[in-house]
């Protein structure tokens, strides 16, 4: 992993951030991202990086009520119940936020939420087929429960062939995409490596300079040997893989082409060596009609093993996890990691990626660190112009520009270093490719020599067999001749018999002669054979000599690693310059605002919104994140008390007929097992409602927010929401209906829907609303709850 903590980098950073508040000594920041020498916790180091780069104010910490709603939504996918929210807010312990984060990360609700999140991330709402949704979700659920590292999870998705019953869930990733190699290449490029290489299927990317067609086919080469296999008897659909087949391509634009592209992780390591098997020995199970081929060496398996070594994988995964908490990636859009789309805070992404891979690709520690940051816990309320000191903006811009110049100077030597590393790699790689080509020629010669030797030996064996055959015949005829001769002597009058005896005797003599001749032939040591044996020995010696010349894989890897590290260092330096540009733009925007504020208040207001957006991206103010369709659906069910009813029903069912896992556990463990089973069951129960919301509100991660008239119609006139608002059992409207005191009613409603205490003016509004509604009080309450659910406070995570 490339780590940038050079002295030079630290110096530049100090210059860039010299005037930013609050100040952090930059050498500390430098050390903080170093090789584990720092004592600061990860969340502290994250905050240091964000705050050191900040231009303008950092908003203060959010209220407890905001926090409890936010962290519940992000870690469990649903708002807290009114009771949970209230309990948190009144809790007076100083470390209650950390406690809540840990509690939620350990909860069964987290398992449900992460399962749903991974499902959407990986299957992207494709129609359910081949592997059913429940099996897939069970696989994900168990993986999250087991804290399976993400590199292993992805490795399993790539490797699983679906033949093994236990792997069935994991195989959904490929089977749901019909094992179509192009679909798998595209989605692995995006989801595993953060690079949407689809355009490169046909040509180098027209808009992105560093996405090449050989990046695409390098990845494609890992999966192209895979295909769907349907067992004719069981009808089970699984994956088959071939032991041969190389990726070749030709650009539809330039006509440039490449033959036999070596498998390569995007922007990463090459699969240098593949085990070679002699022809006929490549398969564990040879493919045939109605037989699923299983090669001894699987390229998919090779890709799975290379994942943890890929820096791109670590960066992409860290970025995706960050986006789950902050509503936006440090690189955004998530599928477009490339030079022209720099991370908002480059060192932050590197820190997260390094920590993530060093920590064994564990999801919870990264989410935990994110949730613990001041950046995550800031208020979403926009800073006001009064919080900014505009007087020194011009000086700041100047300072930033100077810093940028200094940073730019580091780029050139790093570019040179990369060029050298590339040249060095190319040299050994070319040599290796040349040797491999030579080897394949020599291997052919050896194979031919072996074949001709074998042919000669076979001829000899055939001759020996012939001798045996003829001798057998000769003996038989000789015996017959003897018997005939006796008979002819005994019956001298039988002319025919005498003639026959003479003929057989003659044939017997003939056969004896040819048997003798054949014996001689088969026993003569062949000169030809000796020559052939020598030829084979020579060819094998030549092959061995060339093999000995081939550089060791380790040395190839080493040169490759040097190149990749140089590549990352240069990218990092360029990203640093880009970050300077963003900072300069932010500082300039403040200056422009100051001018507008005096002349044109309308334009100034719009300019201010732009500045607040920049601060949001930089982590200086909390983002307003629209709830996903699922979060919206389940949270509305939570607020109206419907969810609790469903959970209680599942609980009851489990208690009535406890499954084996519950029977064998006791006490707290039994409770834990039960809660896990409940949330697992809830995944299935919520599927229908969620699907209805997904149709209206969209359902992909990182999708553009859209508010549509149809959503409003659905929410206002749909039977689903309406049913939740009719008083029944212990649901919210029923509970509120029983409360006579308006203050108490408003409070209960506000905690349930908004996870906060009611404001005074809200009490007045409710009082007004309930006036003259004694006849249909429950209906009036339902209307108010609907109104709160459809307000923007409920629609967004704030």
């Amino acid at each position, binding site marked *: 992993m490339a780590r940038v903590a050079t002295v030079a980098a630290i110096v530049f950073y100090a210059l860039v951030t010299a005037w930013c508040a609050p100040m952090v000594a930059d050498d500390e920041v430098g050390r903080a991202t170093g090789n584990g020498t720092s004592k600061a916790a990860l969340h502290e180091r994250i905050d240091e990086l964000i705050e050191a780069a900040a231009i303008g104010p950092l908003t203060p910490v959010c209220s407890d009520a905001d926090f409890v709603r936010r962290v519940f939504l992000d870690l469990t996918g649903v708002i807290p119940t009114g009771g949970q929210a209230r309990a948190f807010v009144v809790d007076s312990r100083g470390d209650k936020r950390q406690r809540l984060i840990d509690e939620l990360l350990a909860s069964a609700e987290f398992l449900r939420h992460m399962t749903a999140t991974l499902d959407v991330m990986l299957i*992207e*709402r*494709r*129609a359910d087929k081949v592997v059913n949704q429940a099996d897939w979700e069970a696989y994900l659920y168990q993986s999250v429960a087991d804290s399976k590292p993400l590199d292993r999870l992805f490795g399993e998705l790539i490797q699983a062939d679906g033949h093994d019953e236990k792997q069935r869930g994991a195989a959904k990733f490929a089977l749901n*995409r*019909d094992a179509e190699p*192009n*679909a798998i290449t595209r*989605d692995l490029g995006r989801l595993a490596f953060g690079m*949407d290489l689809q355009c490169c299927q046909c040509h180098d990317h*027209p808009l992105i300079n560093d996405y090449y067609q050989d990046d695409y086919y390098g990845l494609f080469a890992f999966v192209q040997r895979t295909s769907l296999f349907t067992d004719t008897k069981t009808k089970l659909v699984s994956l088959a893989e071939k032991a041969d087949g190389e990726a070749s391509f030709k650009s539809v634009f330039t006509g440039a082409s490449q033959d036999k592209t070596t498998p390569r992780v995007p922007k990463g390591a090459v699969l240098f060596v593949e085990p070679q098997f002699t022809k006929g020995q490549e398969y564990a199970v040879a493919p045939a009609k109605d037989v699923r081929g299983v090669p001894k060496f699987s390229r998919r398996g090779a890709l799975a093993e290379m994942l943890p070594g890929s820096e791109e994988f670590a960066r992409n995964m860290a970025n995706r996890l960050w986006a789950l908490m902050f509503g936006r990636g440090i690189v*955004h*859009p998530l599928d*477009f990691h490339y030079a022209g789309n720099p991370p908002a805070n480059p060192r932050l992404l590197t820190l997260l990626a390094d920590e993530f891979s060093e920590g064994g690709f564990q999801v919870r520690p990264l989410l935990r660190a994110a949730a613990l940051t001041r950046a995550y816990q800031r208020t*979403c*309320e*926009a800073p006001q112009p009064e919080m900014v000191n505009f007087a020194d903006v011009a000086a700041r811009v100047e300072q930033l520009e100077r810093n940028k110049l200094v940073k730019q100077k580091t780029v050139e030597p790093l570019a040179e270093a990369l060029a050298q590393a590339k040249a060095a790699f190319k040299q050994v790689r070319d040599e290796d490719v040349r040797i491999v080509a030579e080897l394949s020629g020599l291997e052919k010669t050896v194979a031919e020599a072996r074949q001709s030797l074998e042919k000669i030996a076979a001829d000899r064996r055939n001759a020996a067999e012939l001798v045996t055959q003829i001798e057998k015949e000769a003996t038989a005829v000789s015996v017959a001749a003897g018997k005939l001769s006796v008979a002819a002597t005994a019956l001298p009058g039988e002319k025919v018999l005498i003639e026959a005896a003479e003929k057989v005797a003659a044939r017997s003599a003939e056969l004896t002669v040819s048997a003798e001749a054949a014996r001689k032939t088969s026993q003569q040591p062949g000169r030809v054979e000796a020559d052939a044996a020598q030829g084979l020995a020579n060819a094998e010696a030549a092959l061995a000599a060339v093999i000995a010349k081939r550089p060791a894989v380790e040395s190839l890897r080493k040169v490759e690693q040097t190149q990749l590290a140089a590549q990352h260092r240069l990218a990092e330096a360029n990203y640093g310059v880009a970050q300077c540009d963003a900072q300069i733009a932010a500082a300039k925007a403040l200056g422009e605002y100051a001018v507008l504020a005096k002349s044109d*208040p*309308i334009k100034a*207001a*719009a300019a201010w*919104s732009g500045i607040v*957006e920049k601060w949001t991206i930089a982590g200086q103010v909390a983002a*307003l994140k*629209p709830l996903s369709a699922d979060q919206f659906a389940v949270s509305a069910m939570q607020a109206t008390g419907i969810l609790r009813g469903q959970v209680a029903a599942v609980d009851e069912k489990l208690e009535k007929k406890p499954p084996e896992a519950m029977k064998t556990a006791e006490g707290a463990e039994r409770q834990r097992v039960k809660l896990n089973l409940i949330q697992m069951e809830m995944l299935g129960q919520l599927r229908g409602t969620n*699907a209805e919301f*997904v*149709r*209206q*509100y*969209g359902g*992909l991660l990182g*999708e*553009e*927010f*859209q*508010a*549509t*008239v*149809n*959503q*409003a*119609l*659905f929410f*206002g*006139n749909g039977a689903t929401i309406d049913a939740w608002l009719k008083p029944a059992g212990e649901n919210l409207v029923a509970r509120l209906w029983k409360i006579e005191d308006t203050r108490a009613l408003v409070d209960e409603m506000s905690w349930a829907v908004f996870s906060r205490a009611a*404001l005074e003016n*809200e009490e007045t*509004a409710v009082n007004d609303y309930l006036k003259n509604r004694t006849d249909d009080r429950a*209906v009036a309450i339902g*209307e*108010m709850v*609907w*109104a*709160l659910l459809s*307000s*923007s*406070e409920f629609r*967004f995570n*704030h």
Partner: protein
Amino acid sequence: MKCQYACHSADHLFSRRSLLGAAAGGAAAVASGLGGALAATPGVAEQIKRKHKRILNVFMHGGVSQLETWDPKPNTDTGGPFRAIATSVPGIHICELLPHTAKQMHHLAIVRSLNTKNQDHGKGQIEMVTGRNRMLGTDYPHLGAVAAKTLTPEGRFPLPGHILIRGGGGGTGQAAYLGPKYAAVVMEDGKPPAYTDRLASLSAEADARRSAFRAAASDRFAGRRRTADTDAYTFSYDQAADLLTQREVFDVAKEPAKDHDRYGKHEFGQHCLLARRLLEKDVPFVQINHSNYDTHFENFDFHIEQLGEFDLPFATLVADLAERGLLEDTLICVMSEFGRTPKINSRYGRDHWGTAWSVLLGGAGIQRGACIGKTNDNGTAVTEREVDHGHVFHTLLAGIGVDSKGEFDIGGRKFPVADPAKGPIKELLA
């Protein structure tokens, strides 16, 4: 007599992601800017009455025969029993099964040289309406979604931008990466879209009351943080309220009785009349279906029957749009998933055929009375100006003034508007 469709095409399903379902979508104004800019948005745009472009797409499900419609080959081994008749455009002849449409040909144009290299219903349905070659695992937006995204009038436009009047035949009007806002709003059998009926238990008065309560709550929250997203969200409820006041737009019964007679009381006639009503209200994209043309048996009998139903209402619609001055801004297209084989099979049927067939276009941006491309004497191959679904898709967009070579920016990701390897049929554009 019921046609026996050999391959049950009406039941064909095609795979797509389930996220953008049929009932989603709708039109809405562009998210307003913030601060002072917001206040100026509603109202003003209404006063500046711009000329809005629209598309009417008629999809002939099952694969209509080009030989019995736009490219007849009478008196040849493949031509079948029908004659070609003259149209209102000298020199253009179409099949005698379309006498009424023939009289409107001066508003229309024919492309006779499609080679879409496809004989599969599902693939054809997708490729014709997305203008792209189908790629497994990839969804492209329907023409209607693209039209809605580019043509929805700015300001307070409460109606859906992409309407699919679904009769026989399928279609979902997927929006893919353009998002649920542009997915088709479906009028199943011509009935109003889902959720446009207020719940029986909710009076208009109560609805207004609770909406005011909602608006007040949203206003309180806007005091904490206001973004383009929060504005768009609160605005969507206002639009919904607007739409409910205009829901008669969806009710074809409100059209005069004599028009019902002119268009016919059968499903296709009613849907044509409904399409007219929607287009008059500036809905940017309307698709109607006519089903079913999958005539592997008795091709000729069934084209008499089907086109007999199609011809009059379609021609009436074209004439009405022209007469009402709407055709200037309404582009018409009649497409199908493919054509039918010149070779007549042993059951007097014609089979699937994508090698040489036709589509009909007309109205906005289209050269009226044009006839592009040619097939050979018995219709077995394209001989001039070969085009495919990609070119037609570009042409439709270019016709309504959209830069079909441009790209969409969706949350920072760039998507070409149409297949970048193709372009519009320039000589067909007015």
